[in-house]
């Protein structure tokens, strides 16, 4: 008899696969067992697995202190049949038993996703993205200062940005720990910093388009679309690192969850917007002449075209 044990509830690291051979496989904490499990809740001689003439595999509890379960049935002084893939609970340890013939999933092709994850491994990325975030937000804050230059204001903004990045990183590291038993904290932080840099440039670019668009509705739709893509991408990468990247189904779940989150936020925005407001909605942006694309119309033409506002009010 040859069996593969997947020890998935070990307190450290990823699941371990161990192959054991023998007519009788003894499991326990003592060193004369065939499968030795280092768990204080497991008895020295906890259980044994045997095979009968028909090739059926059986588990017998050896009167252990905390008992043995197969799936949800307790082996109480009697044998319980095992199948390939059965779940064993011994003390606090969870094991899965497989026969060597148990099918495995076919290999996953290396996709652009793998390039992303490989790129994230680059150690220079962390330093460069942190420096870039610090510079970009420092400069932006400086450009918003119309009074005496104050270092404190720049430091405040940096603290807020880095503080929120850190809390996001910690959140995803915890998620990773739950799903994959590895926190990947450094890689999560890299993704978040790269995302912050990307978002900075994209929003500045979108800002200039909005300034030139002269249409509030278009501006809102464009901004929401950009936000949708950015947030979905970030969530997808976070989930990719936090859960098992080799399973395509999880990738799909990641995309669906992120899309749902973004749609939900847009929906709640829309609900709030339908209320009465004293304040008119228009593109509240002004940029230097060099960033203006449209030439504009003559003043007389402008005064003529504003009457469309009254047509819009009549349609409502």
């Amino acid at each position, binding site marked *: 008899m040859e069996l593969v044990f997947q020890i998935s509830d070990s307190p450290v690291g990823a699941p371990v696969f161990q192959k054991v051979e023998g007519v009788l496989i003894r499991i326990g904490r003592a060193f004369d067992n065939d499968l030795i499990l280092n768990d204080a809740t497991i008895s020295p001689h906890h259980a044994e697995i045997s095979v009968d003439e028909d090739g059926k595999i059986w588990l017998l509890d050896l009167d252990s202190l905390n008992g043995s379960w197969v799936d949800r049935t307790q082996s109480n002084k009697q044998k319980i049949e095992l199948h390939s893939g059965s779940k064993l609970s011994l003390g606090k340890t969870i094991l899965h038993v497989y026969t060597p013939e148990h099918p495995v999933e076919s290999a996953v092709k290396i996709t652009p996703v793998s390039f992303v994850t490989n790129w994230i491994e680059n150690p220079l990325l962390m330093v460069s993205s942190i420096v870039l975030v610090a510079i970009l937000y420092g400069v932006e804050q*400086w*450009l*918003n*200062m*119309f*009074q*005496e230059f104050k270092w404190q204001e720049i430091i405040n903004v940096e603290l807020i940005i880095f503080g929120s990045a850190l809390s996001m990183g910690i959140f995803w590291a915890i998620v990773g720990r739950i799903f994959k038993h590895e926190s990947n904290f450094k890689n999560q932080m890299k993704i978040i910093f790269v995302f912050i840099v990307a978002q900075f440039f994209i929003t500045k670019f979108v800002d200039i388009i909005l300034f030139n668009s*002269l*249409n*509030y509705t278009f501006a809102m739709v464009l901004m929401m679309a950009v936000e949708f893509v950015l947030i979905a991408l970030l969530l997808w990468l976070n989930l990719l690192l936090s859960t098992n990247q080799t399973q395509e189904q999880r990738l799909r779940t990641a995309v669906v969850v992120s899309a749902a989150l973004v749609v939900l936020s847009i929906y709640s925005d829309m609900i709030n917007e339908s*209320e*009465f*407001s*004293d*304040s*008119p*909605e*228009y*593109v*509240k*942006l*002004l*940029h*230097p*002449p060099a960033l*203006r694309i*449209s*030439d*504009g*119309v*003559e*003043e007389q*033409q*402008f*005064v003529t*075209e*504003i*009457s*469309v*506002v*009254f047509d*819009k*009010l009549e349609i*409502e």
Partner: protein
Amino acid sequence: MMGVLVLINPVYAQDASSLFNNFSDRIYQIRIIEQASGKQAAIGSGFQISQDGMVVTNYHVVSEYTRYPGRYRIEYAAHNGVTGELQLIDIDVINDLSLLKKDDFQGNNLELADGLPLQGEAIYSLGNPHDLGLTVVPGTYNGIAKYSLYKRIHFSGSINPGMSGGPVLNVHGEVIGVNVSTAGNQISFLVPLNKLSELIKRPRSGPIVLEEIELIIANQLANNQQRVISDLLDSEWLTSDFKGANIPNEIAEYIRCWGSSENDPDVAYENFMSICSQDEYIFLDSEFTTGNIVYQFNWIESDELNVFQFYNLYQAQIENVYPDNYAGKDHVTNFECHENFYNKHSISGELITSKGTFCARKYKKYPGLYDVLYIGASLHNNQHGLVSHFTLAGVSMDMALKFTRKFLANVTWN
């Protein structure tokens, strides 16, 4: 002993006390009673103006009744404690007057004066401040208030809440005006005699039809704005230099302009402001006012800030724009806006491009009337710019468009 006391009393106190004694039976407290609870929801003052029981008060005293006629009734309480029901006969929302009628044709009435007193003459305001009982407030007639669009009388004396709608009498006990508002510190305003006599003489076939009241108000508002705005359109506008531009100044005798500038030494820019306004609004109800005319200019300049800093500062000037009148979702729609860049040439031939935003919202109960606002910002320079802004409350589309055309034409560049 009594004789000595009388001799040393000032003359006006004598007049005030005799006026009070002679005419207190013609002055009432006006109460708006909530039908369900029978409790008063609003109070004001009023006075009888004819033998057949016609009573005058302010429109704003009875506005809740006109808004929800089924929910309220109007009552008077006489000096001697007698109460009775009043019927709404007519209103004038522009001059804040309303005409009521006593069901029982009893009581004496006050007479209208033939004309207004001379400046400095003693006049007496009567009413029921804060529900404290009938009170007489002596003060001085100071002519028609200087910047008053609706020709309100400037009364140097204290009018307090609850006195609204009460009469103001000359030394002969004749009505010269109606209490309407106060600016505090003994500065109060009265609706003048002629507006009152116009309302009383207005031909009418019977009491106001409550179902038509919105239409009546709409017509009064429309006629008034038509008159006020077309006067503005017909007149030559006074303009003045404002840094690099030339802007409208006091464009009518009732419009007042104020200037200010930010001169904090810590600030790396200068902000010059000119704000002009007409200060009398038309009261429609406690959450809805109209009739405002306000325009404002800000010139922002800096030689210390770089171009991005300057435009961040400049953008902040257009981010928070609100209309100058009060209105809620029962009264108006949300704003709709149109935006575009537009060009004009300065006197020296330079092309000035501005971003203009024109917004309007519709009055839900008064068809054909809108609140409009405009916000513009010049975008041709990296170190200075002009923000122009105006609000017109309760105007027709035609008047709004013509005013905007004239306003923009009167902003020129040197």
